[in-house]
Structures are given as C-alpha cells and as structure tokens.
C-alpha cells in the first residue's frame, strides 16, 4: 500500500523547501520554548521551580490564586490597560495627523521637519530617560499617569510609518473632497484616514504592545505601587524577599493573554499592513 502514501503534498518536496521548513521549525522552537517554560513554571509549586521538566510533576493553580489575592495585581493590569490605550489612541491620532501633513502639504522646510523627526529614531531610549526624568521632575509629573505616558504620546516611528502610507493615497481623492466642500481636517479624518486603515491597525498594535510591555521608563518614573504597570509590578515580586519565579511567571502568563487576544483579532490587519508597507512603503 506504499502507493497510497504518495500523497500530492509529498510530490513536490524539494531540498530548498526542506531546509526552509527546518529553519522555520527551529526558529519556532526558539520562540515558543521560553513561553512554554513560563506557562509550565506558573503551574509549579515554589519548591519545583528549578525542576526544569516542561510538564510539571505536581501541577497546581495556587500561584494564580496567590497573584490575585495579592490585591495589587488587578490594579497593575488596569494601569497598563489604561496607559497602553491612551498612548495608542494618542499615537493613532497625532502620528497620522503629522504624517499626513508631511505627506500631503507642500510647505517650506517640510523636508527639514521630517528629517528632524526621523533623526530622533537614532537615539536609544536609555539615553532619553535622563532628559525625560529631568523634564518630568521639573514639571511635577513624577509618579503620575501623565509622567508614564508623556514620552510616548507621539512617536517618530509612527509619524514616519503614517507619512509613508499617506503618500500612497492619490491626491485625486483629496481634491475631489476639497471640491465636495470638506475642510482640510475633514478631508484627513473622513477621506484619508479610512484609506490607510491597515497602517493604522499596524501602528495601533505596535504601540499597544510596546506600552503593555514597557518596563524601564515606568519603573523609573513611578514610586508608588498603585501606579505600577504590569511589568514593573511583576518585577517587584523579585525584590521583596527572594526572586519568586513562580509568581513572576504566573503574572507574565496572565499579561500575555491580552496581547494574544489583540494579535488574534487584529492579525489580518497586521499582516495586510506589513504587506502593504512592503509593497508601497
């Protein structure tokens, strides 16, 4: 019955494909293993944390109970959710507004403004943290929501991304709208924005995930535990008595859920957005 194994799928197996699949599989393993260990550790009692078996010998949900009984944890989730949402909305609005202006309006110094914005991409966060801190201190924003959010309310990357996308929108649409009687703001909001939804989704997802997982700046700018974001809160499990890996991993597992949900819901937009960026950017 060997012939029955000659399925159509196996007929066009080529060496190139085998290599590609192998590499992809290895890459997948490298990506997924830490996540599996995170999940596995969250299901182990504290005494088994250094037992590196993937399937817990004595699976338990007590870590999850402990994390929620701690009381601060739901607050951290809400903080992260609030901050990531506000920053995302702000980015979607302002990045696209500036990107649109740079893409579609001809004015003196336009190129210079664009280069200036773009050049900030070359400065790493670690270097910006000090001026941000001085700014937050001088304005009295330390240990506040605004203090956590202000550096990310608009990003050079988002502006650049949106500018590139708006450049692909034909001017005819905007001119037709101008003749139809829309003002410039309405043209942007009602005509141009709906035409770049893939880019907007991609920007929203990147921004949300970036802020959901942001660690250094929220850690520096906050001092009171009520203002901690999830990653900062989780890290506090490691400083009090000892490193409580099982609790950190439990918190991290829970923190992964919203990102997973967002990704599954918006995946087609991400892929479309990235594909379009690849073709037309």
């Amino acid at each position, binding site marked *: 019955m060997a012939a029955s194994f000659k399925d159509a799928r196996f007929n066009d197996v080529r060496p190139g494909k085998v290599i590609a699949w192998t590499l992809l599989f290895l890459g997948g393993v490298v990506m997924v293993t830490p996540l599996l260990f995170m999940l596995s550790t969250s299901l182990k009692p504290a005494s088994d944390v250094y037992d590196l078996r993937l399937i817990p010998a004595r699976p338990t949900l007590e870590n999850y109970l402990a994390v929620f009984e701690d009381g601060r944890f739901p607050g951290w989730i809400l903080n992260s959710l609030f901050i990531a949402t506000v920053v995302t909305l702000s980015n979607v609005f302002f990045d696209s507004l500036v990107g649109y202006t740079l893409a579609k309006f001809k004015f003196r110094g336009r190129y210079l403004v664009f280069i200036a914005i773009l050049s900030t991409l070359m400065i790493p966060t670690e270097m910006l943290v000090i001026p941000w801190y001085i700014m937050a201190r001088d304005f009295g924003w330390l240990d506040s929501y605004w203090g956590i959010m202000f550096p990310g309310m608009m990003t050079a990357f988002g502006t650049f991304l949106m500018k590139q996308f708006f450049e692909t929108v*034909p001017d005819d649409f905007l*001119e037709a709208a101008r003749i139809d*009687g829309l003002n410039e703001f309405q043209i942007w909001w009602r005509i141009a924005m709906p035409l770049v939804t893939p880019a907007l989704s991609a920007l929203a997802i990147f921004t949300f995930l970036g802020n959901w997982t942001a660690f250094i700046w929220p850690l520096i700018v906050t001092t009171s535990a009520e203002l901690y974001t999830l990653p900062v809160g989780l890290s506090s499990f490691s400083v009090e008595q000892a490193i409580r890996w099982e609790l950190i991993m439990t918190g991290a597992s829970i923190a992964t859920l919203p990102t997973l949900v967002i990704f599954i819901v918006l995946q087609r937009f991400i892929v479309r957005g990235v594909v379009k960026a690849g073709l037309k950017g």
Partner: protein
Amino acid sequence: MATIELQNIVKRYGKAATTVQGIDLSVADGEFVVLVGPSGCGKSTTLRMIAGLEDITSGTLRIGGRIVNELEPKERNIAMVFQNYAIYPHMNVGQNIGFGLHASGLDKEAKQKRIRETAALLGLEPLLDRRPAQLSGGQRQRVAIGRAMVRDPAAFLFDEPLSNLDAQLRAQMRLEIKRLHQRLGTTTVFVTHDQIEAMTMADRIVVMRDGRILQVGTPLDLYERPVDIFTARFIGSPTINLLPGRLSHHGDGLAVELDGGGPRVPVLQAVQGTAKDAPVMVGWRPHDLVVDDGAAAAAEAVRLTGEVSVVEPLGSETLVHIDAGGSQIVASTGGKAIPKVGERISVRAPLQSLYLFDTATERALVSR
C-alpha cells in the same frame, strides 16, 4: 448654470517655466467646451485653475460673472470628474454620490431623494449598496459623474475622464456624457488629449500648445480652417497629408511645385501674406484624397501617383498608404475596392480641398 471667463490667465510654478502663458477664453452658459492638446500643453492646469485646485498666478477668472480667483473650490459651485474617478473606496455607491451633497445643508430625506434621482438617471439604482471595488470601470466613472451631478453645480469640469476606459466603453461613455449635457444643459469644460473625443463632444474646441491657445472654434471650423500646421495635424483622423513644395506664378494664378518632381498644383484660393517662391506645405485630408477609379473626368482635380505600401481595410472604407515620390500619403477608397500592396495607383483630390501652410511660420496661407 453659468458662464466661465478667463482673462489673461497665467500659471507659473516658482521660478520654473510658465505652464500657462496668459490665455483668454469665454465659455457661454450651457456650452460644452473641450480643451485639447498634447500632454504638457497646460490644459489640465487650466482646468485645475478653474476648479480652484491651483492658484492663479495672474489674470482674472470669472464664474457666473463673479471673480473667483481667491475663492476656495467649494465656494465656486463647480463639480469635477477626475481621470481615475476618485470615488471613495470605503463608501458604497449611494454614499459616494451623496458625498457631493456634503455641504448642501439638505436634510437626510431630501438627500436620499436626490441620490435616488441621480442614480436613476445614470442607471446606477441597482448598484447603490455596492462598493467601488465591485464595479466595472464604466460604472465607476458613472458614479464619479453622479457625485458631480447630484449637487446641480454651475459648471462641470472633466479632467480626461475617459482615458482609463477601453475603446468600446470610451465610445459609450462619450455618448452618455454628451446626452447628459444635452439633457441638463450645464456649462461644461472637458479636458482630453484625444481629438476624437474633442470632435464628437464639443460645441467648441480649444486647441492648446505650450501653455497657449492656438485656436478656438467649432469642430468643423477646426477641421476645415486650421490656423496652423499643428492644429491641422492634431484635428482629424487619420492625420492630414502634408507635402513640401514651393509657391510660384503660373499664368495669371499661383501654383505649388511639389518637391521631388510631383505635379504642379494650381492654387484657386486667395493666398495671404507670403513671398512668392516661398517654401510651403501643401495638405489634403485623407478623405479628400480618393483612389482614382479612372472613370471620372477629373479636370478640376490634382492627381498623385505612387506605390501602395500598406492597406488598412476598415469595412466602410479602406485607408491606402502610398509612397509617392518619397513622401508617404494616406488616401481613402470604398470599403470593397482594396488595392494590392506594391500596386501603382493614382489618387485625386478636388482643387478646393487643398490646405496650404507657410513652412517657416507654419501658419495657414489660404482661407478656406
């Protein structure tokens, strides 16, 4: 409805060359005017200045008697149809048409009524809920026209609206637009580089070149009495035959000696403003130049002979390309009498059908 008047309109981009070099044009109320010319002649720029999408460098633009130089597009009460339709992909047909009423201040019900009326007029009623992506090119163009019409504007501006359609659809839309204009009677300015569109649709054609108007006239005017070689070549399909020659005295009249030893061509019309013995270009429309069947005694005709190089049978007629003493000429013959390639034939044209141009200035020398 309104008149459109352009007075010495100039468009200059920065320090670069002037795109439109001071044009004067007056479009009457309800008139269908076509701006035609090769690409880069300034026709689209002129249209965009009328629309308010480009600033006017100098000159005066009036729509309905009102100076509109400084007015925003929306304040000019005009509607424009673009080359690539520019219908919004995220809205359905009904919303797209209704978008033209955005600034109308009508209530929802009145808007819906207008949308339905417009859609009915354009045969778009069954498509009102469709998205542009689900429409054919012709349907999209109709939606674009619908969006322009719904507002009942003072004037329609069309910027090469048919150039993205295939030949058959183009002919059909041409007819539809013309019919629509006859029905609505709205002042229309239409830009195209296609002389057939210009000839078939226009009340008057404006021929432009290098940012200037060369000639304004009815389609027949331009065909019969082109002011220069450019217009003569541009209007009419197939293109006019032009042969080099020299103007000379012959008896009491004038004649042209064709270069390369062709026949002497008597000039019956009055010739203005050129030195005798000057180099000229003699022209005949291919439809005036018919293949000689030898039957008619053609005393009043010019005869040219040559070898058939290409034959294009079109059904109702056949175009015959002839190599006549080094010059290529095109003549026409009835659909059924198709000469063979390589055959020597003679063609004749009535003496009155001759066009004459000064070779140096390219201006017409006879008034027909």
